[in-house]
């Protein structure tokens, strides 16, 4: 079981309020991702749930039981840190066994659980090594192993992939998703990378300055962003925003259109413009197009084999069905 409820949770560091009163419901077995730009309070929120920081106000309930003042070890949660926080002087075996040893489990039971975890995480060959002798991805797995053996009610991940290189990150992303499917345990995952959020989450919580901007499934957030911030944050490359006259045509202060929802044509369309820098990814090409009367260049997606070059004249046509309209306050219309 791993149902977590935050009720009017507030956190201040001295005078500064980093998290204004906030409510959140995390259901059992869910993969929840906290995402937001750096400094938005997502790590603080995770640490509040873990119990590593005291809440200034409000309450945290885990499986219905009041947990606000329960020490971290008694909450039944396990955490994977950004720096992995492995114990450098202990072998992998001892690292993974540490929580069991602290719980006073006997040696045979410890060994059994450690070996089971090592098998799941492909660490069996490395059990006698020290963390210093492992690669980044292996260290990451040891940190996860140390969390798994405790059989926690929920896993907390604090930007676990940010120290890995791009290829490894994709691999570990899959492994963590796979682990979630297999264990079906609640996982709370903090990241600033919206791609990680989109690919892994059942539920995304978008945070800005300690406030929850929107909560929803990845596709919900993609399809119906509640405001400009979420619209700009979710999706890669970013949504294009257009103000002024063009927006007024749609009765909005700002309109947003995603690069993948814009047609590029050399013959004719709504917005004439000039091709700037293009980024070829093979499968897709992203063009930065400067359109007449628009303040910023727009990013558009075209197929991988489109033959357009710097300085070419093109016409863009936004897909009306996927046009997002926002009012003066940045809220969705």
């Amino acid at each position, binding site marked *: 079981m791993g149902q977590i409820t935050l009720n009017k949770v507030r956190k201040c560091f001295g005078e500064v309020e980093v998290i204004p009163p906030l409510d959140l419901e995390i259901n059992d077995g869910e993969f929840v991702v906290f995402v937001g730009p750096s400094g938005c309070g997502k790590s603080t929120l995770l640490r509040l749930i873990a119990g590593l920081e005291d809440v200034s106000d409000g309450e945290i309930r885990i499986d219905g039981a009041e947990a606000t003042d329960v020490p971290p070890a008694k909450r039944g949660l396990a955490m994977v840190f950004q720096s992995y926080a492995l114990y450098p*002087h202990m072998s992998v075996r001892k690292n993974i066994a540490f929580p069991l040893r602290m719980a006073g489990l006997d040696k045979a039971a410890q060994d059994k659980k450690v070996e089971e975890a090592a098998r799941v995480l492909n660490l069996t060959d490395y059990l006698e090594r020290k963390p210093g002798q492992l690669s980044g991805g292996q260290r990451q797995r040891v940190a996860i192993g140390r969390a798994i053996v405790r059989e926690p009610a929920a896993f907390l991940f604090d930007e676990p992939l940010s120290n890995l290189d791009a290829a490894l990150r994709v691999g570990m992303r899959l492994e963590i998703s796979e682990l979630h499917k297999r264990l079906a345990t609640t996982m709370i995952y903090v990241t600033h990378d919206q791609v990680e959020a989109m690919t892994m989450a059942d539920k995304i919580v978008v945070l800005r300055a300690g406030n929850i901007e929107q909560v929803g499934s990845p596709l919900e957030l993609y399809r119906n962003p509640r405001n400009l911030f979420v619209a700009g944050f979710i999706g890669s490359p970013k949504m294009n925003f257009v103000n002024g006259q063009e927006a007024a045509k749609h009765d909005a202060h700002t309109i947003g259109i995603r690069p993948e929802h814009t047609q590029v044509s050399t013959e004719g369309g709504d917005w004439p413009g000039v091709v700037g820098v293009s980024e070829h990814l093979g499968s897709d090409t992203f063009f930065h197009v400067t359109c007449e009367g628009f303040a910023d260049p727009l990013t558009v997606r075209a197929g991988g084999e489109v033959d357009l070059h710097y300085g070419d004249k093109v016409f863009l046509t936004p897909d009306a069905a996927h046009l997002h309209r926002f009012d003066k306050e940045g809220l969705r219309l």
Partner: protein
Amino acid sequence: MATKASRTAARMMISPSVILLLGWMIIPLSMTIYFSFLRYNLITPTGNPFVGWENYYWFVTDPSFKAAMINTLLLVGGILLITVIGGILLSLLLDRPMFGQGVIRIMVIAPFFVMPTVSALVWKNMFMNPVNGIFGQMATGMGFEPVDFFGQIPLLSIIFIASWQWLPFATLILFTAMQSLDQEQLEAAEMDGASWSSRFWFIILPHLARAITVVILIETIFLLSVFAEILVTTNGGPGTATTNLTYLIYVSSLLQFDVGMGSAGGVIAIILANIVAIFLMRMIGKNLDA
């Protein structure tokens, strides 16, 4: 230093200082070794015949040598024990956020800047003197018999004085090491259900292991030659109760005017210090590699 030419040039450049330093060390060392094989007493100028290992024989079989070795061991061991344990405790305290952090940290280091002679005299006259000292006054004030520190517990008193001086050094090194501990490790251990004492035992202490070794080795080298504290407080007495190896060498060569005997003692001390130094060099070398 890429090319052969630049390497040669580099060697030429540093050679004057290396040769100077080497000479500075080699000349007194070889003279000491040379004198240690001579009968060389300033009171009985009989010429200085070569006597082989005789000086060493008499130095080692002297009953005060055994006492001096035991005292040296007790002195070094006692001070190490107090400074390492005290240093760990002090740095645990200093590691906590508190009011006046900067000033307190500087004040903790202060005793290290006081000269050994001065601090020993201050302790002797102002604290440990049974009549005028603060401890004596306090004991008398409460109706107890004041302790005559240098009469009843001379070695312990000197261990205490030297520990007071060396505690800041140990604290400084251990405190720096403690600050380099990754806080996430402690938090991870906390999540893993480790109590404070388990965190100290399984995380903090292993992290400090290297720093502790360095403190022990460096202090050992300096503590083998504790001298000023003994000279200004007890003069090695009562009897030989506070005579360590360094003080015994001083007694032989400067009180008994026996240069040969003193040199033999000096060579023995050099050998002892070098054994420690070898461990120290290997230790520090390993730290630099890592």
